[in-house]
């Protein structure tokens, strides 16, 4: 099967599905081993369209379903009651397009806050300065209220105590126990998708890198894949190998950093120092082969800028191997530390059944028994370089997530080392690509947080009409809110860190 070309290279099949049948159709598709990759909307001359992207987890392919809404229709029947994964996607559609999913169980704003003017639907219209000056009468956001004797609310954020991104957490507590947690995001909504449809295609790669800048490499790879699949071309294998190596280095660096973060939240100073130093080493290797600690500005469609020379790749591969040894002697500080294990065990449990309903991705999903890894499903040839496994645990607690991330960090260092050792510099011109009209391009990457999808749709002039980024965090936030229930308030930081989600990737 690995001889087959990756499914993303061939043109992405588009299929029109009447909006009235969409709910039933998706329901059957999802029960046939497909995943709802993303759900979004798009403008067309005949009215809005609802776009659903399905990932075939068994055969490794992607399909895009397009459902045309009647002209001037501003609502459709919500999918969420049958398909829980659609919950946040539909809230986003409501915010960005003003298309109301009727019958949505909890329709609130997701990214567009009360501070924005009325009737601002950034992707459905050209936002004029006049509109931005309009008076704001938006109804204030209403949090779910937990009633009962002794229940009190603890509002946290948007500005947090630690050095992390802004978001608001509303805890309803009974004593120290969290009865309910509502997460309100949108504070770092910067208009990424609007910017992506209105900018030069050479600027796009920099915008996607900034979408969630701690995942710059994976976003750049997904962007490159999406453009390439749209244009029906493919980058040379050496370049693809180098890209994957970058994604693996990013994975290792971020997982190691978050393991240090878990130590820090446990108050375990020695562990957090040890992991921080290791993370620094990995970032140094990233700097060596790309010239930037976050590997920005090098991964581009069809090519690779400043391709590192062979000796540099070999040296980096050797250093990665060294680093792996150090990691192996550091991980026991956390994962064989009985008092740390006692703290993490049974905390922030995400049950397998719920994880499936929410469509969890990445390490958080794999810690709850969701055996879904984009690298395995799409069988990229460079990943055949060695035998490797993705960890799969069922406990779904903080400990399981820490274990999964530790294992993945080690595997990532191995993979990156082997891939880099076999990279031979090639010259590939960074030519301007012609984009076909009315087509779709998809990039799908296992970023360090999980499945990252870029979807590009062109209009009849071959211009990018819609650029949708689905960050892995988008699927996992609800899980964090649910996993926090029943835990102590003072355990929440640890629980949060074990998920390690991106705020800016979700808000865009």
């Amino acid at each position: 099967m690995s001889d087959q070309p990756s499914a993303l290279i061939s043109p992405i099949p588009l299929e029109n599905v009447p909006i009235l049948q969409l709910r039933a159709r998706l329901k059957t598709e999802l029960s046939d081993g497909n995943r709802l990759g993303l759900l979004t909307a798009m403008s067309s001359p005949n009215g809005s369209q609802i776009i659903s992207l399905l990932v075939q987890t068994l055969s490794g392919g992607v399909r895009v379903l397009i459902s045309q809404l009647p002209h001037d229709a501003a609502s459709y029947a919500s999918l969420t009651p049958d398909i829980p994964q659609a919950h946040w996607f539909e809230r986003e559609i409501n915010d960005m397009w003003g298309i109301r999913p009727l019958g949505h169980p909890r329709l609130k704003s997701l990214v567009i806050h009360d501070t924005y003017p009325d009737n601002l639907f950034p992707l459905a219209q050209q936002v004029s300065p006049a509109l931005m000056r309009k008076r704001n009468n938006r109804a204030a956001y209403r949090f779910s209220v937990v009633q009962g004797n002794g229940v009190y609310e603890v509002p946290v954020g948007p500005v947090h105590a630690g050095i992390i991104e802004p978001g608001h957490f509303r805890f309803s507590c009974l004593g120290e126990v969290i009865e309910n947690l509502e997460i309100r995001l949108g504070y770092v909504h910067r208009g990424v998708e609007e910017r992506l449809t209105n900018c030069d295609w050479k600027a796009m790669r920099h915008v996607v890198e900034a979408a969630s800048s701690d995942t710059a490499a994976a976003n750049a790879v997904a962007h490159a894949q999406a453009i390439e699949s749209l244009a029906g071309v493919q980058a040379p294998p050496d370049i693809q190998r180098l890209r994957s190596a970058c994604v693996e280095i990013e994975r290792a660096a971020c997982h190691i950093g978050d393991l240090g973060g878990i130590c820090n939240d446990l108050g375990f100073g020695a562990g957090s120092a040890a992991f921080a130093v290791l993370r620094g080493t990995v970032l140094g290797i990233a700097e060596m082969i790309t010239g930037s600690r976050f590997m920005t500005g090098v991964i581009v469609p069809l090519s690779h800028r400043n391709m590192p020379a062979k000796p540099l790749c070999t040296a980096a591969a050797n250093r990665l191997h060294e680093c792996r040894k150090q990691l192996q002697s550091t991980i026991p500080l956390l994962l064989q530390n009985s008092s740390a294990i006692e703290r993490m065990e049974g905390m922030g449990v995400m049950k397998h059944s719920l994880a499936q309903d929410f469509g969890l991705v990445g390490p958080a999903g794999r810690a709850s028994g969701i055996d879904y890894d984009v690298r395995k499903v799409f069988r990229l040839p460079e990943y055949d370089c060695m035998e490797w496994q993705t960890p799969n645990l069922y406990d779904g607690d903080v400990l399981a997530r820490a274990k999964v991330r530790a294992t993945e960090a080690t595997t990532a260092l191995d993979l990156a080392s082997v891939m880099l050792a076999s990279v031979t510099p090639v010259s590939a011109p960074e030519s301007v690509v012609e984009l076909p009209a009315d087509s779709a391009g998809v990039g799908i990457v296992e970023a360090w947080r999980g499945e990252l999808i870029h979807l590009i749709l062109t209009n009849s002039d071959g211009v990018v009409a819609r650029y949708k980024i689905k960050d892995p965090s988008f699927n996992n936030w609800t899980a964090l809110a649910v996993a926090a229930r029943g835990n102590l308030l003072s355990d929440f930081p640890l629980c949060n860190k074990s998920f390690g989600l991106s705020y800016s990737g979700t808000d865009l």
Partner: protein
Amino acid sequence: MLPALLNYLRGARQTRGPVLPDLMDVNRGLPTLTSSPCIHNEGCTTCADGCVSDAISLSTEDTAMVTLDLGKCLACGHCTHACPTGTIAASRITRTAVRQRSNLVLTAGVTSPPAATNMREMFRNSLVVRYVSTGDNATDMEVNACMNPLFDASRFGIQFTASPRFADALLIGGPVPLAMHEPLRATFEAMAHPRLVIAAGMQAVSGGLFTGGYTKADGVGKVLQPDIWIPGNPPHPWMIIHGLLLAMGHPLAFANQLDP
């Protein structure tokens, strides 16, 4: 666990080497202007053509002149590679923070005027920093790295705090979109006088690629008045530490930096 712990305890101290060193040669660094003349009057626009963030502007008014705004620079390395005359070259210095926005705008042959304000004596040995992230999580990570054993800003008397009431300096990363305007202002208002504002990274300085949109993500300058500006995308931990040292008026910050 025990072998790992002993192994850790046996390890050497990780804070070593010079303070504020130049970046490694492999790093792209930030661009800078050299004395070799620009040939824009012969029609060369290579640098500006490839600059997606409009950080470079060219003029032929007098002689060929190139102006480079580090506050908008993505550090993508395009211009330093493309410049045929070497007028724009990579610079790997980490002493890049400045006290006036205009000092981030480099013009060949023009030295920026000295900064008017002097930093307060009282923060010389102790500075407590409140960090607010507004949409650039790579900068968050680099700010975190400032306190790790490799960079260890604590040795200069720098501490990060949870409460704005404890803080002397407000360090901001990210382009400050509309929904963060109010929280940012509130954080600043909660701080006791005297207080400083520091913009970390090109997104915080100018909004970067998000500027001019409906989310009004135009950088810190639209909401508060920064006292220190740190370029970089994201700024290297040394660049952030330089900005903090500059805020303290620390002698280490004042050797061969951009800011006269």
